[in-house]
């Protein structure tokens, strides 16, 4: 079937089997390989992208459902201020090792920062529960997000 969607702000029309999930569509057809697959059953979070403005599992949305959707992948955040701050903070806090979980982590981290400006450590951990990392032990990731939250609160007050 033919699918029309907007990816990282650019309209795209692709041919895909209805059974192809969004992650494979992005990776295979659109060559956006920053979106990773870690389980293909919704648990690991590696495939998380923004769909119509909110984080979603790209392994659980099959081609038909993407028709008309607006998708933003890790490649599509450019100079977005929150993403810039998160990248900086992730590196400073050593929040990544092999990098495989990182794109999904960043998409979720950005959502946490914007949606829950007052989140404390416990809340950040809870919100991260759907993104597995096998390398870091999470401390760096949690600290990186808390750091961005704190600096934004500082800037706001």
């Amino acid at each position, binding site marked *: 079937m033919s699918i029309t969607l907007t990816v990282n702000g650019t309209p795209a029309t692709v041919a895909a*089997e209805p*059974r*192809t999930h969004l992650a494979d569509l992005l*990776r*295979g057809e659109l060559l*956006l*390989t*920053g*979106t*990773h*697959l*870690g*389980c*293909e*059953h919704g*648990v*690991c979070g*590696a495939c998380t992208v923004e769909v119509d403005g909110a984080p979603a599992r790209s392994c659980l949305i099959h081609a038909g459902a993407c028709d008309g959707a607006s998708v933003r*992948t*890790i*490649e599509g955040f450019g100079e977005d201020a929150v993403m810039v701050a998160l*990248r900086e903070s*992730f*590196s*400073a806090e*050593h929040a*990544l*090792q*092999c*990098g*495989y*979980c*990182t*794109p999904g982590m*960043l998409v979720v981290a950005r959502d946490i920062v914007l949606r829950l400006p007052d989140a404390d*450590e416990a809340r*950040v*951990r*809870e919100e*991260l*529960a*759907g*993104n*597995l*990392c*096998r*390398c*870091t*032990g*999470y*401390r*760096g*990731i*949690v600290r990186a997000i808390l750091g961005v939250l704190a600096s934004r609160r500082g800037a706001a007050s």
Partner: protein
Amino acid sequence: MTATISKGVGASLRRKEDARFLHGRGRYVGDIRPAGTLEVAFLRSPVAHARLLGVQKPTGLVFTAADLPEIRPIRANSTLPGFRASDQPALAVGKLRHVGEPIAACVAPTRAEAEDLAAACVLDYQALPVIADMLAARAPGAALIHEHWPDNAFLETRRDEDLTDLDAVAAAKVTRRLRTARQHMAPLEGRGVLAEWDPRLEQLVVTTAAQMPHVTKTGLAECLGLDEGQVRVVAPDVGGGFGYKGILLAEELVCAALAIRLGRPVRWLEDRLEQLTANANCREHFYEVTAWADAHGKLLGVEVDATVDAGAYSLYPFSACLEAAQIGSIFPGPYTLPRFRFRTVSACTNKPPILPYRGVARTGVCYAMETTLDALARQLGISAQAIRAANLVPPEAMPYRNLVGKVFDSGDYPEALRRAVAAVDVAAVRARQAAGEAVGFGLSVFCEQGAHGTSVYHGWGIPFVPGFEQAQARFTPDGVLELRVGLHSHGQGLETTLAQVAHEILGVDPARVRLVHGDTALTPYSTGTWGSRAMVMAGGAVAEACRQLGERALAIGAALLQTDRASVRLVAGQVVAGDAAVSLDQVARTWFRSPQNLPANVDRGGLEVTAGYRPDPDTGTHSYAAHAVVAKVCTETGMVTLEQYVIVEDGGVLVNPMIVDGQVLGGVAQGIGTALYEEMPFDSEAQPLAGTLADYLLPGATEVPDIRIEHMETPSPWTRFGQKGLGESGAIGPPGAIVNAINDALAPLGAELLDLPATPARVLAALAKAGRA
């Protein structure tokens, strides 16, 4: 010298590799798909033990063993006396020996279509009795998995010493039967292979998610009957290894053979279902431990009978016996054990083979030893700290050779224990216990042999023996320093830390250092990244190559400065003589682009050096650590909560403390998984019962507490900078410390937990056994 302090050895330099990952520009096997690539899905065994009678193939590209006779079976031998090697066929021949064993390769333009083919195959087999449990494997009359063997064991090892006299003199004696679960290493990225045949070079190019690309190349060449020059292995970005990517895969062989046969790129990407239910597992141990101690807790002797469920085949290159046979030599741990008797068995069962996971056998050994010590302490009425203090190797004994010949290089083990205990308010835990709360304090102390080399491995006689680690250092014409190493970085940050080492020696800005790794065509041979060896071995090799390169640069620089070699030094990336200086960039430019200015006696090797390194002695460094845990147990549900987690760690000189902490923290998270969550259950027919990450639980951000790490930095006397291998350390200590904390909490209720993981169901069962639930 401020530059050295901020960027060289000891600096928490931010990682050079971060930028690409933070922008989604990492490049993993699954990201590479040349035009015309065909995808593979495997038809896999649905049963654990059967005679394979045939496969009815649907129309399409489906290959069984009979179609690919050019692939020889994988054979991972060991020369240890009595070892039985297994022939692991790339595709099943004659028999099926575990669920998930590959039977046929189904090839199609997309993975989905390849899976359609696999689903359309019809399998004909005759079921055989299944060996699902390692203790039942050697029972008389048990079905034989490899029919020409006398029984289901790869190897048995022993050390005989009569300990019966200890009963009469010991103040305490305990015996414990302990089990650790079968686990998955579960890197977030699975395995993946892309094989291509390059007709121009007549070369097979295999891009694969691997930790040990050169060893994979050797294995591929052997099993495919190619010469090694005809095989190139590329390991691009790899999404975590932990041991899982340290084996030669049947799937790699099949993809390679198909690429040659079909003349098209052929790719297989492991999915999570395959990883969980078909491919290698790790860590399933059973221990029966008896320990004797005097009234002060001083160990008089230990006897251990250990069995490891090695699964159906001996994996290449580590073999089926490394895990079990190692138990004998590492069981004494960091303690001065006077007498010791052991037997180890590598049992063969109808389960997927196992391979060494971060910590290898140490995690199980530490669990068995540390819980046994606490049982002794409870019997003697002394503290967990006291019994350890009574037995740890004292600093004045270093370097210390223990009774099985392990040599510990350096350190103050009792101090690590003291600091770990001091970091926790144990009195507060005792007060809460007195008030009736089920809360406990637990310790584990261990040491980790890392970077052990030729002298240790030649005795195993497995398919590889690590020798001199080589590194190449060379300048490009613009003065960028290029380092080439044969091992692989997949999260460890070697692109940064090896640049720090180069900076330490040559003063080149790490930003101007590039690491080339993960390509057998571009790097010197190496056994790869395993055994906590990368920073010791590659760090030493890079330092030596840079030192020699520096010598050559100094000679050219001296000529450019019109002085002699004795008058120049390297300072911050410059060749300096008094007030005059010439940059390494200029030196490089001279060699490559203005050779007319070179001195007549210039070293014709140019600005390119390959150097080898091996510590002397090469018996390995021993990093060590004490873990201290406060855990709370809900006696109603069995749920365990980790309230505090403290680690005192001695990794010698830390090349990059930030990265070291990252290694420790990541290891601890995995150790928490081993302790509390991770378990691959099998039914009595050896069917794996967890096929998704919703069933096989990995610790998430809510399960791993905020961990405190304190460092001691006793330099290893044997390594280039005093660094010690510690990449695996974090994963070793948690099960012992956590279960000791749980048992401390349960002790007032008369309950004790013995098996891993300490799930709520097991905690409640322990309480029920004690009549408390």
